[in-house]
C-alpha cells in the first residue's frame, strides 16, 4: 500500500530523514517511535505530501504520490496539534471537512462516542485542549479509509475518551486497515502495536514486533527497552546509506553508531 524508498529530508543543515526504506503493506497497527526530533512526524507528513522530500520516492498503491493530493482520500490523518479557526463552530468545522471528501462520514456516531453533542454549537476558540483533541479525533476517524495516520492521538484525552479511542483503533485493525501511530506512551504501544519502527536521528534502528525489541535488549517492558536503546546503543541503524559517510564500528559483536557508545 505505502512504500518509501531512500527517503531523505533536511531542514537547513539538520538532516531529519536519512535514506529511509520502509513499507506498510500489511493490515495492523505500526507504532512509529523515537525521541523528539527523531523524524517521526516528518516521516508521516511526507506520506501525506505535507513535507516534500529532498530525495527518494513515496509510492501509494504502487504509484508515486500525486502532488494534487487525490490519493489522500484514502488516508485519515490526525495532526499532532489540534488548533482550529477560533470563530467557527464545531458543527461547521465538521461539515466543512465533510464537504472536502466524497466518502460517507460517520461523524454522528463519533460525536456521540466522544460526548461532543453539547459543544456542537460552541465556537472552537472556547473549547479546552482535551475537547479540541476530541474534535480532532472525530474529524480523523469519521471516514472509512484504508490508511489511518495518528500523530500523538492521546494528547489531553480523559480516560473515557481514551478507552473509546482504543476501541476505535482496535476496530480499525480488525477491519483490515493500516494504522500508523506515533506516541510517547509506551503502555499504549505494548497494548496495541503489531509492529514497532524505531527512529533515531532520521534512521531506522529497529523494525519488528514489540516482543522482539524487548528480547533483543533483554528488558521486560517496552519503556525500558526504548530507554535502553536511547542510552546504551544496543542496536545499529538497519540501513546506513554510504553517502552519509558516518563511521561505524563493532563492539561486542554489534555494529554501533559512534554517538551511542555504551
Amino acid at each position, binding site marked *: 500500500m505505502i512504500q518509501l524508498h531512500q527517503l531523505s*529530508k533536511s*531542514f537547513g543543515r539538520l538532516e531529519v530523514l536519512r535514506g529511509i526504506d520502509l513499507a506498510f503493506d500489511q493490515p495492523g497497527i505500526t507504532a512509529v517511535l523515537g525521541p523528539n526530533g527523531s523524524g517521526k512526524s516528518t516521516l508521516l*507528513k511526507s506520506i*501525506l*505530501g*505535507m*513535507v*516534500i522530500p529532498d530525495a527518494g520516492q513515496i509510492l501509494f498503491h504502487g504509484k508515486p504520490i500525486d*502532488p*494534487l*493530493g*487525490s*490519493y*489522500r*482520500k484514502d*488516508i485519515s*490523518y490526525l*495532526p499532532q*496539534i*489540534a*488548533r*482550529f*479557526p*477560533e*470563530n*467557527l463552530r464545531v458543527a*461547521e468545522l465538521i461539515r*466543512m*471537512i465533510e*464537504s*472536502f*471528501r466524497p466518502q460517507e462520514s460517520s461523524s454522528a456516531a463519533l460525536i456521540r462516542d466522544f460526548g461532543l453533542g453539547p459543544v456542537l454549537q460552541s*465556537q472552537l476558540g472556547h473549547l479546552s485542549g482535551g475537547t479540541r483533541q476530541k474534535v*480532532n479525533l472525530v*474529524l480523523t476517524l469519521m471516514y472509512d479509509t484504508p490508511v489511518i495516520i495518528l500523530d500523538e492521538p492521546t494528547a489531553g484525552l480523559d480516560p473515557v475518551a481514551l478507552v473509546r479511542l482504543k476501541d476505535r483503533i482496535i476496530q480499525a485493525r480488525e477491519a483490515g486497515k493500516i494504522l500508523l501511530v506515533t506516541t510517547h506512551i509506551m503502555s499504549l504501544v505494548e497494548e496495541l502495536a503489531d509492529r514497532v519502527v524505531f527512529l533515531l536521528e532520521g534512521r531506522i534502528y529497529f523494525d519488528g514486533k514489540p516482543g522482539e525489541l524487548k528480547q533483543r535488549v533483554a528488558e521486560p517492558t517496552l519503556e525500558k527497552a526504548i530507554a535502553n536503546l536511547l542510552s546504551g546503543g544496543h542496536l545499529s541503524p538497519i540501513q546506513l546509506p554510504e553517502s552519509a559517510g558516518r563511521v561505524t564500528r563493532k563492539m561486542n559483536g554489534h555494529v554501533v553508531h559512534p554517538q551511542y557508545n555504551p
Partner: protein
Amino acid sequence: MLRIIRYSFADLIRSRWLYFYTGFYLVLTGALFLISADLSKVMVSLMNAILFIVPLVALLFGVMVQYYTREFTELLLAQPLPRRSIFLGQYLGIATALAMSFLLGAGIPFILSGIFLSGEIWNFSILLLSGVLLSYIFSALGYLLALMHDNRIRGFGLAIVIWLILAVIYDGLFLLGLAWFSDYPLERVAIGVTLFNPIDLARILILLKLDISALMGYTGAVFNRFLGTSTGMGLALVVLATWAIVPVTLIRTISLKKDF
C-alpha cells in the same frame, strides 16, 4: 477552492478585530460628515485615512491569519485538496472579508448622506475601489510574508517595515530625490518610481478622479500632464491590479514548495 474561501471568510467575519475595523470606519466617516457637509471634502479626508490604514491593517491581518491558522492549514493539507486551492482560498477569504468590512464601514455613512442623489457617486466609487484594491494587495503581501518566514516576529516586523517604507518613508525619499536632481527632467522617472508604490498609485487614482490639482502633488500633476486624466487613471488601475496579481502568484509558487 470556493469552500475554503467561504469558511475562511466565515471565520474572519466573526472576529472581534474585524468588527472593530468596520466600526472604526463607520465612526471615522460619520465624524467627518459631522465636521463638514461637503461631500468632496469628506472624501479627501477619508482618502488620507484610507491610504494609511487600509494597507497597515491588511498587511497585519494577512500575516496574522496565516500564522494563526498554521495548524489548521496542516489539517487541510491532509485532505484530498490541491495546495493551490487551500492557500489561494484562504487568502481570498481574508482579502474579501477585509474589503467588505471597509466597504460597509466607509460606505454606510455616505449612503445615509445621500451620495446616490449627488453627482459625486463616481468619485466615491473610485475611492471605494481604491480601498478594496489596497485591501487585496496588502493582505496578499502580508500572507506572502508569513508564508515565507516561519519566525513570527520576523513576519510581523517585516510587514511593519514594508508599511513604513511605502506609506511614510517613500514620499520623503522621493521628494528628497526630486530636490537633489531638480536640474534634470524628472517627469518620466517620477512616473516610473510611483508605479512601485501602490499607495501612491491609489492616491493618484483618487485625486485624478476628484480632479483636485492642489492636492495632487508632484507625481499626480505629472500623471495628469503627461498622461491626461483617463490614461493616467487607466495606467494607475492596471498597475494596481498587477500589484495584486504578483504577490498572489508568489503565494501559489511558494505554497507548492513549502514544508508543513
